[in-house]
């Protein structure tokens, strides 16, 4: 057995995969951040992406983001659908010239040799209307399976961005299922022989039960209104980051209401528009705040260039 075959035969655990990606992107100049501690539907909504993609300052970060999507919950019974999945998020601003090559190298680091597979960049323009975001890019297909989302942000929080941030989102469970060749995410080895199902199956069931059957709609409706009110109040006080936390809470609360199926088409548009208004406002407030500070990270860019 060659060393490579040996590496392939020992299936990479989920945590090993995450460590590998962390090391890879740290070497490319990304700061390794931690997951942000407010519920959210995607890594894009972390302030390390959403806020940092706005304005002139450079930024490069990589982090794992547990992402909650109540409507996708399946009581832990569907092998591929989850209430909460994990995204490995890489954002770099300005987008590096060879970001596509970096990405392919990261797959090689995961022992996925492009010569042994079929890797395609298939057009997929990403949009998150509730956060006023839009970008251009691809789904990355690995032997026909979408394993990553690759986006050049064009608009964030309603603001046209410049420089442009490149965002790469690896679907951790998807990619791991491929690497470990399992048919159910619950059979993945997280690390040291412990299975994904051992850790997450019960929470999946409970969260699904809660989201679809037990959530208190009246309470959630009140929460949404209260969170929204608080977000606006904090934005008026110039407290951008606490305000953003409350916007995230609004978003998650809406997702819980949506999962109960109590939101009609038009009401849905109404809620999304309320969240979008706050996202637009907070994006502007963030730029203002950074401007007052003199865009401190620009200094870093100059030093690096020297």
């Amino acid at each position: 057995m060659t060393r490579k075959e040996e590496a392939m035969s020992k299936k990479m655990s989920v945590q090993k995969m995450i460590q590998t990606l962390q090391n890879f992107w740290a070497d490319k100049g990304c700061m390794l951040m931690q997951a942000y501690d407010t519920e959210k539907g995607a890594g894009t909504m972390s302030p390390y992406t959403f806020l940092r993609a706005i304005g002139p300052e450079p930024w490069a970060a990589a982090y794992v983001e547990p992402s909650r999507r109540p409507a996708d919950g399946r009581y832990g019974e569907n092998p591929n659908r989850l209430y909460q999945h994990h995204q490995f998020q890489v954002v770099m601003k300005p987008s590096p010239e060879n970001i596509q090559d970096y990405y392919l190298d990261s797959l090689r680091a995961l022992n996925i040799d492009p010569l042994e597979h079929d890797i395609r960049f298939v057009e997929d323009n990403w949009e998150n209307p509730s956060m006023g975001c839009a970008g251009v890019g691809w789904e990355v297909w690995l032997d026909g399976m979408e394993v990553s989302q690759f986006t050049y942000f064009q608009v964030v929080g309603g603001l046209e961005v410049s420089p442009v941030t490149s965002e790469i989102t690896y679907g951790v469970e998807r990619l791991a299922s491929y690497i470990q060749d399992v048919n159910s995410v619950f059979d993945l080895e997280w690390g040291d022989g412990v299975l994904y199902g051992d850790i997450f199956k019960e929470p999946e069931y409970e969260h699904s039960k809660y989201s679809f059957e037990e959530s208190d709609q009246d309470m959630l409706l009140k929460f949404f209104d209260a969170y929204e009110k608080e977000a606006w109040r904090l934005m008026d006080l110039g407290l951008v980051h606490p305000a953003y936390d409350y916007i995230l809470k609004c978003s998650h609360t809406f997702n819980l209401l949506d999962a109960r199926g109590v939101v009609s088409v038009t009401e849905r548009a109404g809620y999304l528009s309320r969240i979008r208004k706050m996202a637009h406002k907070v994006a502007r407030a963030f730029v203002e705040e950074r401007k007052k500070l003199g865009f401190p990270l620009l200094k870093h860019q100059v030093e690096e260039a020297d």
Partner: protein
Amino acid sequence: MATYLLEIGLEDMPAHVVTPSVKQFAQKAGQFLKDNHLDYETINTYSTPRRLTIEVLGLAAKQADTEEDVKGPAKKIAQDAAGNWSKAAIGFTRGQGMTVDDIEFRELKGIEYVYLHKQTAGKPASAILPGLVDVIKSLTFPTRMKWGSYDFEYIRPIHWLVSLLDDQVVPMQLLDIKAGRRTEGHRFLGHPVDLKQASDYVEALRGEKVLVDADERKALIKAQIEKIATDNQWQIDLDQDLLEEVNNLVEWPTAFAGRFDEKYLEIPEAVLITSMKDNQRYFYARDQAGKMVNAFIGVRNGNADHLDNVIRGNVKVLTARLEDAAFFYAEDRKKTIAQFVDRLKTVSFHDKIGSMTEKMARVKTIAGLLADHVGLADADKQKLLRAASIYKFDLVSAMVGEFAELQGVMGEVYATLAGEDPAVAQAIREHYEPISADGALPQSTIGTLLAIADKFDSVMSFFAVDLIPTGSNDPYALRRQAYGIVRMVAAQHWQFDVSALQKQVVAQLTQNDQLAGLDWGKNQAAVADFFRDRVGQFLGTGKIRHDILDAVQNAPTVDVTGMIDAAKILTAHQDDPDFKATMEALGRVLRIADKDPQNVAVNVALFENSTEKALHDAVSTVKADFDAQPSEANYQALRGLTAVITDYFTETMIMADDKQVRTNRLAELTGLASLIQQFGDITAVIVK
């Protein structure tokens, strides 16, 4: 004669953008060369997801020399009395790069002017070609993006440019990219390569595992798929759109076949096809008997090495999709149509309008009215009403919940399985059609009527709650739906008077207690105008003159088919020798006739001259047949009145002093006008 190569190297473009963009590139480059008097024989195009390339063959070494006479100021301005050159003359010659010694005088309309005979030697091609960088920048794309820190938008980030005139680099720069002779090979199988000369392009890249000739690549994919099909004795529906898309997803294609578990063949074909073709870009296969087989053909962007890996991965992905589909299918089959229909009560059509159940009830009412209107046989009417009672049921099926694009399709499948009449099942599928401005129309009459009823209800109900499309804002696609009605009605040649139908519908909904608390009356005129505009849109796609369009769009009643017929008839006769006289005579009647006709009977006893009697008799004859005969015959009948009308206006003073006489004459003309208006407001027709 030289060869010039210009390649734009990019990150992977969307598949659907590649072919139109390279065509645009060639067209604009050709225009550039023409504008710059640089002759060439032909322009070849090459394209892959990562490159747009033109190859100019038979390119002249330099621009053609040009000679021209340039006119300057008048002689009296150019020279003073003593013959000294003025500043104006000197400035003019300098501006042309010449001197006053080159001036000659020529007479133009009795005045002498300064002329310069200008000969310009053509510049070499290498001096002109760098200007093509502006052609590269000028290409337009359906989406554009910025990247890095550049303030520049393009379809995708640009990475390299090759600009070679035979063996010489023609320099140009775009952003930080300097054009050169180096191109990139296949992303995984190839290497960068320096081209010795422009004409090496195709073969050099073939060596680096890129087939740059899109036609050659497509032919290869086709041959590979056909070989697999032959080896397995399959039949393949080689969908041209899919082939085009796949061709623009690969630089070095290798087709492969995968097999999935036979048990998934129990899933309805439409679902299998959606999963394979739309979701995964696979070609599906049938056996010689036409039965779908448990296999698919995909195309890899690479060679045949490790193809087993690729196949295994693709099978796994497809299997996961089919497993989901099989689960949904099994779940759905546990339910009856009645159970699905019952669940529609909880599904909102729109929260201001009401539930799906309420919508279906209204549509059933409308469908019934339409069936009677077009004279549908009773047996077919019963099928239509059955379809209308259940037609949205698949919206609450698990399959449509997952594969939204299969709405209607699953309805047909499940209705058939439940033993519904085939015509009912077909109508359920067809009622969504046409799904785009030029999409296919329903094939069956029952499907057409259900489609019209469903769309008419949508337009009426959204208008009833003031959700009326404005500008580009049409979230419920009401324009598309109304336009679909116009197309269907036109194709069937059914009479379709929008206002009359609205009145009937509201009356029937009232009688059936189906008003659902909505104010159906308030925007009825807006609904009619909405259809007026759609008829205009429909006719605008044909070759109808604007003034004729204006005329028919301003008809007092929005009879869709009548308006379309009128436009066609006026168009057919627009070049007749007597068209002008006809339009003028009929237009005169319309102008003077009462705009708000009171039904006043004409009293022949009040006639004062023979032309009145003549017109009255002629109109009575025309009127007798008018409603029963085709529009063309009506046009001919009205045309036949031209002389009578002209005589009438010559001999008769409409606005007579005697009120009785005046009213009588207006009544005569108003009666005639109501016939003319079948062709709209023909006063809008421009005749010269």
